């Protein structure tokens, strides 16, 4: 009945929180009873003492009555738990060195795992905030066959987006978006920020009503030019406008156009940005229609030559993934046909085989997963291994401790504590250790994780704190697992405790029983350490191979200078003059060795034109040919070697005979077996005049560090778009040192709102090395950690053994054993385990090497040299770990040892 339940709960509440009062009540009540009973007997003529004795007899067991009463309180489980915790606390407190050691070991393991989980979670599992039903939302990929391989792209044209909108039926809605770095603000207040250009429909994908104003409607997002309205991001609204509510209706300049603020997004809303929280959201058609200034642009929605945005789509309920893919493919094929029909020269659909894919919303789970993500996944596996090694250490320590406490355990068993209760108590100890380890681990994860996040994840929005719910839960779960695993080992051991033996024996053991469990754990640790170290060595070698690649240009002393007009209108001639002037001024800056004009910068952009060579049907089928604009100083400034022929000269002006420099690989590809010098190249259209090859340069890495075909050519900048030139500056020493100086000197040359961005070449190239750098540093760091843990494990086990066997050693010494024999004895035991571990670990590494192969560069996973080096390192370290206890064994004084117990 309800009232019964209610008073039951009330009683239990009191039992939990007013325990002392209840105890006092109980004490008082029973005492009262005994006194009255004793009074009765005194009334019968007995002495007070005798009366009390009879009263107690009549009562029965007072303590038992108390226990029964306590049992009836309904808090027995909880009481038991509290008791266990208190006991564990006391017993752990008595051995602080052990406790701290275990907590730190577990903390490191748990912390490393929590940190890596946070990273992998953000890369692979998290969905954008506020997204409604994320498993129904897809990032669309369009793929086609390109020279024998299928290439997937998530970036596409607005025209294509309109085609897909029109022709798909499997999706309830589609939206396009693109993140552009644009200058936001008026005049000198302007700063370059992330601006998100989005379809109005994108806001419908989220459960995120605006905190102020409204979002733009599809009517305001229509071709040819959308309405000039803008929605502020929450963060930008707070920092730039102080969160004022009167921002609605105010103008804001984004890029080169002026918009009107109509709303503000909620906190943490980022749309689908991969670059960090956008400052402003504008309609995609408003941006596209005005970004060049002047009259409305129409090409962006009628032609297929500007590929700049991504598409997300929501699958209709009841439509399967396969159906959605098929629908998307059909729509893409229709779009392809449309592209052909308007006259674009593209591969026929029968060869290109266009296909659509509705991929997961997380970019790193799609077909174009970055190498870094794969490395991250491997590194989390590594941290899991490190945790296992740490647990093995802790298990060994707990085993040793359990053996020391054999007597205490035997006594408790004799007193009537059930084995189950004992097991629970031991488990509580381990869970407490693991819990403290988790706390330490979270601290480690917070600090170390911040460092790791900066390395693995480039966008700042993901660099939150570690204290988000998922990571916390993960940390607690693995702490519980670790605690349980390590706790099971001594519990299983204690089941074999023979009561009589344990009670009778002292620490002395007649016959030394080598614990197989401990050896097995050590073996496990050694093997895992070998696996990790082999991985580390493979990555380090790959990194060195990559770093020693000749890029084809210098990196450290080069600055890349890019002028940004920001809407200022200049004629082509004025533009060209401006860029020449920038070059001239740059040359005068102290510390600058030389400056030269160019057109493109490696990795960030590329420019290709249609090429025609006599005797070759289709040049584009032979590969991707990219071009660079160059003046007479270019090759010298960027450090590209000229192999044969001549460099671009000052005489190669507009109107002079067109010339070109080609790379070695391009020369070999287009004119195999012949001398490329003097050959004729035609560009854009078959009928233009010949461009003569006058020089051959070394290959350079334009798009990828590791598999670039190196097909590129240099056109004299004066003969090819000088108005679009950029600047390369070579400095004495490191480019970063002069970055700000160059910017300050060149900025005044820019007219109006225009501005200069100066970037060291190192910042452009390094991100492409990141996956190897990460792999090498992470594997090396964790491999080293694993090795240290394993060495500590080996040392502590041997040291304990020596302590246990003091008597035996004393006997041996008394019987005449030589010190060297003794030393050898101990060392041999340790090294046997280490050697076995090395063999097993090497075996595992050989097998697992296959999976790590794609992440390496120029390095075979079966390189015998690596295995040799790693094995030697492990054996040497193991040797050191064994040496100290062995040494201590030789210092045993037989007199003392024999008499001790």
């Amino acid at each position: 009945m309800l009232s019964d339940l209610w008073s039951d709960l009330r009683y239990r509440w009191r039992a939990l929180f007013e325990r002392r009062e209840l105890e006092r009540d109980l004490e008082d009540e029973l005492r009262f009873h005994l006194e009255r009973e004793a009074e009765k007997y005194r009334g019968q003529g007995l002495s007070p003492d005798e009366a009390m004795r009879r009263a107690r007899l009549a009562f029965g067991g007072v303590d038992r009555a108390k226990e029964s009463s306590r049992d009836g309180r309904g808090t027995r489980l909880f009481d038991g738990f509290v008791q266990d915790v208190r006991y564990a606390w006391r017993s752990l407190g008595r051995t602080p060195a052990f406790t701290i050691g275990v907590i730190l070991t577990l903390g490191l393991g748990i912390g490393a795992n929590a940190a890596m989980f946070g990273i992998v979670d953000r890369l692979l599992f998290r969905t954008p905030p506020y997204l409604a039903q994320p498993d129904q939302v897809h990032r669309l990929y369009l793929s086609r066959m390109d020279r024998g391989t299928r290439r997937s792209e998530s970036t596409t044209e607005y025209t294509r987006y309109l085609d897909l909108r029109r022709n798909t039926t499997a999706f309830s809605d589609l939206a396009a978006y693109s993140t552009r770095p644009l200058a936001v603000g008026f005049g000198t207040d302007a700063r370059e920020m992330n601006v998100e250009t989005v379809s109005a429909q994108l806001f419908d994908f989220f459960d995120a009503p605006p905190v102020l104003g409204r979002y733009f409607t599809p009517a305001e997002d229509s071709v040819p030019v959308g309405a000039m309205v803008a929605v502020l991001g929450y963060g930008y609204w707070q920092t730039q406008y102080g969160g004022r509510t009167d921002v609605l209706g105010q103008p804001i300049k984004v890029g080169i156009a002026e918009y009107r603020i109509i709303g503000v997004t909620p906190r943490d809303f980022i749309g689908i940005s991969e670059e960090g929280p956008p400052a402003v959201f504008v309609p995609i058609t408003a941006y596209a229609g005005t970004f060049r200034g002047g009259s409305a642009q129409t090409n962006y929605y009628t032609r297929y030559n500007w590929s700049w945005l991504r598409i997300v789509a929501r699958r209709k309920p009841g439509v399967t993934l396969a159906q959605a893919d098929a629908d998307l493919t059909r729509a893409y094929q229709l779009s392809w046909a449309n592209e052909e029909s308007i006259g674009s020269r593209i591969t026929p659909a029968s060869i290109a085989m266009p296909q659509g894919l509705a991929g997961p919303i997380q970019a790193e789970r799609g077909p174009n997963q970055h190498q870094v993500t794969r490395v991250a996944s491997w590194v989390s596996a590594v941290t899991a291994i490190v945790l296992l090694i740490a647990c093995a250490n802790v298990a060994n320590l707990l085993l040793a401790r359990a053996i020391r406490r054999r007597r205490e355990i035997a006594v408790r068993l004799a007193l009537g504590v059930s084995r189950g209760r004992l097991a629970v108590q031991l488990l509580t100890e381990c869970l407490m250790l693991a819990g403290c380890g988790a706390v330490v681990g979270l601290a480690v994860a917070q600090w170390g994780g911040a460092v790791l996040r900066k390395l693995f994840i480039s966008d700042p929005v993901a660099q939150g704190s570690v204290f988000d719910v998922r990571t916390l839960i993960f940390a607690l779960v693995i702490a519980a697992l670790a605690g349980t695993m390590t706790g099971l080992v001594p519990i299983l051991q204690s089941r074999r405790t023979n009561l009589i033996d344990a009670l009778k024996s002292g620490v002395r053991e007649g016959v030394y029983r080598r614990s197989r469990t401990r050896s097995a754990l050590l073996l496990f640790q050694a093997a895992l350490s070998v696996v990790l170290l082999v991985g580390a060595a493979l990555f380090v070698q790959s990194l060195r191979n990559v770093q020693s690649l000749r890029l084809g240009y210098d990196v450290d002393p080069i600055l890349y200078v890019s002028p940004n007009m920001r809407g200022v209108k200049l004629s082509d001639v004025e533009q060209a003059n401006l860029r020449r002037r920038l070059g001239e001024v740059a040359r005068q800056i102290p510390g600058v060795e030389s400056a030269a004009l160019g057109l493109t910068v490696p990795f960030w952009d590329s420019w290709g034109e249609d090429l025609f060579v006599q005797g070759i049907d289709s040049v584009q089928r032979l590969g991707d040919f990219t071009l660079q604009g160059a003046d007479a100083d270019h090759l010298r400034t960027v450090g590209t070697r000229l192999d044969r022929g001549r460099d671009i000269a000052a005489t190669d002006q507009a109107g002079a005979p067109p010339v070109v420099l080609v790379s070695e690989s391009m020369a070999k590809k287009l004119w195999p077996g012949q001398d490329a010098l003097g050959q004729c190249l035609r560009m854009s259209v078959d009928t233009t005049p010949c461009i003569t090859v006058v020089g051959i340069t070394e290959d350079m890495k334009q798009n990828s560090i590791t598999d670039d075909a190196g097909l590129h050519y240099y056109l004299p900048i004066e003969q090819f778009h000088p108005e679009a030139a950029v600047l390369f500056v070579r400095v004495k020493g490191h480019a970063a040192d002069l970055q700000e100086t160059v910017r300050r000197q060149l900025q005044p040359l820019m007219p109006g709102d225009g501005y200069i961005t100066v970037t060291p070449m190192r910042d452009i190239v390094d991100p492409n090395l990141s996956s190897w750098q990460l792999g090498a540093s992470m594997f090396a760091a964790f491999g080293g950690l694993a090795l240290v843990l394993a060495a500590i494990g080996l040392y502590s086990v041997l040291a304990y053994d020596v302590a246990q066997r003091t008597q035996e050693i004393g006997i041996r010494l008394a019987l005449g054993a030589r010190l060297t024999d003794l030393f050898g004895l101990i060392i041999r035991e340790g090294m046997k385990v280490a050697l076995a571990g090395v063999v097993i670990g090497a075996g595992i590494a050989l097998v697992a090497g296959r999976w790590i192969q794609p992440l390496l560069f120029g390095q075979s996973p079966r390189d015998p040299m690596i295995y040799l080096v790693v094995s030697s390192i492990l054996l040497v370290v193991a040797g050191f770990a064994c040496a100290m206890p062995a040494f201590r064994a030789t210092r045993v004084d037989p007199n003392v040892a024999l008499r001790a117990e």
Partner: protein
Amino acid sequence: MTDERLELPQGTLDLLILKVLSLGPQHGWAISERLHQVSRATLQIPQGSLYPALHRLERRGWIEATWDASDNNRRAKYYDLTRSGRRQLKAETDDWRRLTVAVDTVLGMS
């Protein structure tokens, strides 16, 4: 003292306590004495088991406890029936009578 006392069947101690308390609030010792007297010393009720039973009944909400001054001015814990306790007493008494009648009937078979 002869040990001809009968052990209480399981669960009947609660019924007896409720009945004693239905005659008025008592403290634990008084309940014990009363049971001893009224049953003419036939029932074997270890005094120690009384208190766990009392606390159990208190938890179920059938009796409530207050501290008060006893007849010799010492502090004692007095128990009293609650309303649901009265209902419980009636229900259990009815059950008991029905049980004993049924058992009698079976035993009376020839």
